[in-house]
């Protein structure tokens, strides 16, 4: 007799949660690292330039080269970083270590190609001497590769290696700059700028080499599937655009100001806006301590309570217990966010209030103060916004993260453009207001998301295993076959 209904012994209940909520860490270094280091380095080099480069145009050339290098290398690589972070985490979890080395090679090929296109387009028709263009291009390329490499190193949690590489690189830059100041290379033009740039690039290059050496030591095996990671465009495409939009959002106001009446152009190649750039970089310096603290918090305490919640979901708990675990986790999150907010507000307000005397003491131009005050508030919003954004990404609220970054970007463009004609008193207001709007939106979205966390957790699972399909999967396959 028939009756197959019950012979279906394949109850596909299995630990499909394993797919998501386990050792996965969206490395916060990916989102915060680049601009953090940009802020630190640029501020430092600004000081150096002030003291050692006499000719103003050369000073501006040097600063712009650095600033452009940082900003545009980030714009180029950030979207890829967001995708590759996910890819690496998954591979590490599945212990598919031999996938990681080739993905770096493949990604570098792609980024390098894109970078060359950008460089050629940018420097075409530039009046700068070739040697300088080459150095500037090297800076751009080295930084791009570094941002990518950092993702790999931090996913493998090689923080020590990272720190040492930067220390050695930094020391090299300093040492070389001291040497070159005494015995400069005889560049025909842009004497000091060229030498300093060379010193900086050399150090950076050393950092890159050291990190690459560690990388190939740690990920020694390769399965030669260099473009396997492209299939993640099928799964997590929004991450690419989130990375792009976030990076664009924090720099678009700068670019708009450069192209306005407040901006100037140096050697027909680089643009800058002296006061605005300086003020903004200083302002972002004020959130470095909090941001670092937060990164540590994310990698440790938050991650632990995050894991506990999903452990509770998977193992022998009634629904009431699961909800209780979630509520306690959410409480911890809010408590920490509030704590960070309080600290940062305190720091920012103090600095803003004391800006006048502080600037005089530190030898900064007093013209910066007004802009600084506004951009400091913008930095404050950005610091907390980053926190919330990372939370959203941890909880796989990718659509929400994309909306927030998109709103941030659009608001910054619109508001900055709207305020520009109103004069220098309103500089930075676009950034501040858009960051504030994005922040409020992100908090609202996160809290709404967390309220529905159980529904999302359970129903976002694949209900049964399935083959990966899609355009990018076949693209990845094809590229893998040809490489």
């Amino acid at each position, binding site marked *: 007799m028939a009756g197959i209904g*019950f012979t279906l012994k394949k*109850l596909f*209940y299995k630990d499909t949660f394993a797919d998501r909520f386990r050792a996965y860490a969206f490395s916060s270094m990916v989102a915060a690292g680049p601009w953090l280091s940009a802020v630190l380095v640029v501020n430092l080099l600004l000081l150096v330039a002030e003291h050692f480069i006499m000719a103003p145009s050369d000073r501006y050339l040097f600063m712009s080269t650095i600033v452009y290098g940082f900003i545009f290398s980030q714009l180029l690589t950030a979207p890829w970083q967001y995708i590759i972070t996910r890819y690496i985490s998954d591979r590490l979890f599945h212990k598919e270590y031999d996938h990681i080395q080739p993905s770096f090679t493949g990604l570098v090929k792609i980024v390098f190609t894109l970078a060359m296109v950008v460089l050629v387009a940018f420097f075409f028709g530039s009046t700068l001497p070739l040697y300088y263009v080459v150095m500037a291009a090297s800076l751009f390329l080295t930084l791009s590769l570094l941002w990518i490499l950092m993702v790999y190193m931090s996913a493998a949690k090689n923080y020590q290696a990272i720190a040492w590489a930067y220390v050695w690189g930094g020391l090299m830059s300093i040492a070389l700059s001291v040497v070159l100041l005494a015995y400069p290379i005889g560049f025909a033009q842009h004497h000091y700028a060229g030498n300093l740039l060379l010193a900086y690039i050399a150090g950076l290059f050393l950092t890159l080499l050291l990190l690459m050496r560690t990388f190939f030591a740690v990920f020694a095996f390769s399965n030669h599937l260099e473009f396997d990671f492209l299939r993640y465009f099928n799964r997590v495409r929004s991450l690419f655009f989130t990375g792009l939009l976030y990076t664009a959002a924090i720099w678009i106001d700068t670019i708009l100001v450069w192209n306005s009446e407040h901006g100037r152009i140096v050697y027909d190649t680089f643009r800058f806006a002296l006061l605005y750039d300086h003020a903004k970089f200083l302002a972002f310096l004020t959130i470095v301590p909090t941001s670092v603290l937060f990164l540590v918090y994310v990698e440790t305490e938050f991650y632990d309570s995050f894991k506990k919640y999903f452990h509770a979901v998977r193992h022998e708990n009634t629904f009431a217990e699961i909800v209780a675990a979630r509520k306690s986790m959410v409480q911890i999150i809010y408590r920490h966010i509030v704590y960070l907010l309080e600290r940062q507000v305190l720091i920012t307000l103090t600095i803003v209030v004391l800006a006048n005397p502080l600037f005089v003491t530190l030898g900064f131009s007093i013209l910066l103060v007004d802009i600084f005050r506004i951009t400091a508030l913008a930095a404050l919003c950005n610091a907390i916004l980053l926190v919330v954004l990372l939370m959203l990404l941890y909880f796989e609220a990718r659509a929400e993260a994309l909306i927030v970054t998109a709103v941030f970007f659009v608001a910054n463009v619109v508001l900055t453009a709207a305020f520009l004609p109103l004069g220098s008193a309103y500089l930075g207001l676009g950034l501040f207001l858009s960051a504030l709007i994005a922040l409020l939106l992100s908090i609202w979205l996160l809290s709404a998301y967390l309220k529905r966390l159980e529904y999302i957790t359970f129903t976002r699972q694949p*209900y*049964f295993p399935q083959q990966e399909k899609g355009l990018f999967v076949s693209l990845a396959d094809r590229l893998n076959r040809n490489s």
Partner: protein
Amino acid sequence: MEIALILEGSYPYTTGGMSSWTQQLMEHLPDKNFKIVSIMPGRDTLPAVKYRMPKNVTEHRTLFLEDYLLLSPLKRGRSVRLSPQEKLAVEGFLSFDPQTDWELAVLTLANTDKIGTSVEFLKSEYFWEYLLSTYRQDYASQEFNRHFWSMVSMYVPLLTLVQQQGPQADVYHALSTGYAGLMGLVYKFKYGKPLILTEHGIYAREREEEIIKAKWVAEDFKQIWIRYFYAMSTGVYKHADMVASLFGRNRDIQIELGSSPAKTVVVPNGVNVGSYAERKNWESTQNIGSILRVVPIKDVKTLIRAFKIVNAVLPETKLFIIGSGEEDLEYYLECKQLVELLGLSDHVVFTGQVDIHSYLPILDLLVLTSLSEGQPLVMLEGMAAGLPYVATDVGSCSELLLGREDDDIGPAGIVVPPVSSEDIARAIMTLLQDQAMRSQMGKNARMRVEKHYNQEQFIDSYRRAYDRLGK
């Protein structure tokens, strides 16, 4: 006229009573067209087709319970907008409430425009809220994760199946409740046509027995599964236009489970007596036959043990085990090993799948030692050939051999309790050694089949049912 036959785990992929019955039905109603819907577990485990379908089969489609695999498992849930009545009906269906509004529930769930695919529906907030509320009501102390996945894994194949397209026909005829019956309901409501149910065994009861024995289901979940199968059956009993079974006892159960007596009938199996030569020679050949598939439910091992006892007393005897051993190779090998172990290798023959007509003339009697039966076609065939039977008292076997209350034809064999090799052996030896009894019982057997279990009454009953309902 077009009749859609809906079968589960059977024709044309497996041999057996129900498949033969189906083939017989279609072959003897050549003026009617048949469309077949076979419901099978999965594409990769699909056996080969075992029957040549007659010319009046105009369509054959196979629905796979595992075809949810063709859907995307990551598709997001969609918002489900239903009226209060629709919600009530759907929730009744999902809670396996036999009193639910089946028509509304089935039509709503089959409507992908309304609720999305099965996966989309099961990821919707609506379903989530429903699941949570029933969980809180009845299962609040259970592990939620396990509960969620158990329920989802039940619903996914069920809802996917319900959303499948079906053939257009004038009458729908489901040959079991379960998924076949459910699809019968779906088609009936969707196309507004009558539904006939014929049950060879009581599906819900059989599933209940299986579930109770199953080791891979958690105890608390067994109740849910059992309720699920009973609810599905009740739906069909209530809404089918005609409910048929093979013998009285099963009819009683169908009425008990919700079928109204007026539409519940008994249509016994039938054989074409004319195709079996009337036996004239009753001299003993010392050959015993058993026509069956070598599977555990037929308890072939008890048969072999019984034969050992017989063979010890009557060393010239031979046992022919006539039927396929393909369905359960492990069990088949165990039986062969038992034969060897008991030293019966020279006296026991496994014939495999053969034409029984060639063996019937050389056999003295037939034996059927099943643990569970409905109304075995093989018994009717053997009886038509004028052979006496030794059979276990399961299903309708005693009714066949000893007749119903108003039956004055004598016994056609000896009925024994199941699993008892001594009783079986004794019955066999009685028949082997008493030619007069053998011949009388054999004649009775043929007479009974001619009178009550002939092919004409079986075919006629259904012809009349189709003509009545399908107009």
